[in-house]
């Protein structure tokens, strides 16, 4: 069991808070849930806004008479700067997009050039293969002709022998 310190008013304060908080909160919550409270709050806000409006108008009038800029004037100026910044931001994005397109097109042209080189080397290789095949075919044809001629010679010699 905790021992209450007789010299500690803050502990008593805390105890009171802990014991009454839920009760007070419930009570406040019930009161604030009522339409009357919303109505009162609305009225209070209206009065406050009326007061604010009056202060603002009189300040603006005074500053205009004193030939000094008001908060609204300064904010209008800032607004121009913000608009200008927005335009610069848009331009920046357009340039970035344009640059990325350019980089893309640069990449595409690089790719096309590489393809061209590849094609050329392929073409060259194909030519070489065709040349080799042609030579091979010619050599084959020549050897076939030689064999045929040799066969013909043999046949002729055999016929000549038989005739003799």
């Amino acid at each position, binding site marked *: 069991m905790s021992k209450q310190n007789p010299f500690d008013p803050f502990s008593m304060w805390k105890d009171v808070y802990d014991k009454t908080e839920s009760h007070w909160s419930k009570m406040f919550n019930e009161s*604030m849930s009522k339409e009357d409270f919303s109505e009162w709050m609305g009225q209070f*806000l209206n009065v406050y806004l009326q007061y604010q409006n009056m202060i603002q108008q009189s300040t603006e009038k005074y500053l205009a008479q004193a030939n000094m800029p008001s908060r609204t004037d300064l*904010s209008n100026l800032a607004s121009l700067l913000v608009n200008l910044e927005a335009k610069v931001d848009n331009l920046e994005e357009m340039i970035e997009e344009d640059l990325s397109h350019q980089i893309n097109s640069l990449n595409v042209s690089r790719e096309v050039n590489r393809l061209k080189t590849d094609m050329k080397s392929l073409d060259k290789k194909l030519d070489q293969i065709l040349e080799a095949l042609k030579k091979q075919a010619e050599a084959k044809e020549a050897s076939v002709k030689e064999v045929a001629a040799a066969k013909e010679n043999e046949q002729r010699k055999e016929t000549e022998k038989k005739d003799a």
Partner: protein
Amino acid sequence: MSAPVTKSWEDFLDSMPQEMQRTYRRFKKASEVLTTEAEPEVGMTPKEVIWTKNKSKLYRYQPALPKKHRIPLLMVYALINKPYILDLSPGNSLIEYLVNRGFDVYLLDWGTPALEDRSMKLDDYIMDYIPRAVRKVLKTSGAEEISLLGYCMGGTMTSIFAALHPQLPIRNIIFMTSPFDFADAGLFTNWLDEKYFNLDKMVDTMGVVPPEMIDFGNKMLKPIVNFYGPYVNLVDRAENESFVNGWKLMQKWVNDGIPFPGEAFRQWIREFYQHNKLLKGELYIRGRQVDLSNIKANVLNIAAERDHIAIPHQVEAIMPVISSKDKTYMEMPTGHVSVCFGRQAINKTYPTVGDWLEQRSK
């Protein structure tokens, strides 16, 4: 206090009972935290800015370890607070955790809008800022697909963005405590009722809605806990150094809101809270109808059990609408903010997000 006075005061303190000395020390520490101590440093994970637009910045976090996962993660935060809740302090940062697990993490910080941004609409953020940030992330990372994480209102905006850009290569989406169904938004539904809440007058008068008003509205959802509770807890645990550090970080974030651009606020309240157009499929962004069924990416939808800003039923409502085949809904035992800050976040949320993403980033 001059030296002799301090000395005699210390002597007097030493003569008092131990309990009184302790009480005094706690009071002194709490007073120092509230008045003189410096604000804690936040957002300390190393990062670089890779793109800016108006006040927005796109950060890329620098990993201490090599990147293991090829799909980058872009985080989108709400328009009403600073996003450093995702990178609060070393050891207490979702971003640091994910970076250390080898993810390539990016964050879109909306910056602090001023009066000149009063005409900015959600359309502008969803159609001009997020798509461009996505393109920058894809270009910087060299990846072909992307993961998105939307926290709070940032998740709602991410869902609209993903629905309107089905052609973009979005592999994974994580929603963290993001509301989608506004039919019953708790007390906000009552307070923002068209009968009482003069939205147009508010936007036209204020131009940009000050952060104090938004913070006040959020705190009013639980006034005792939000206005009074933090100070009771601070004094009670003022001797606990790590609690005090966490308390200071949280208070810094809570009190460091940003203004809400007027037109975006008008749209957010009217079309979401008052008419619930998103889930009904009646929302138009720059003339294009938002159809959430266009979302086909893998989805992890995280809600917080004790959330009173994005109540779990508001978060879960997107699940049957999207077309994703791989979709998971989870509730964390946390509140709206503690879902990504504190012990439960470190033990539950971070590993859940990390594991889910890791399996889907190969």
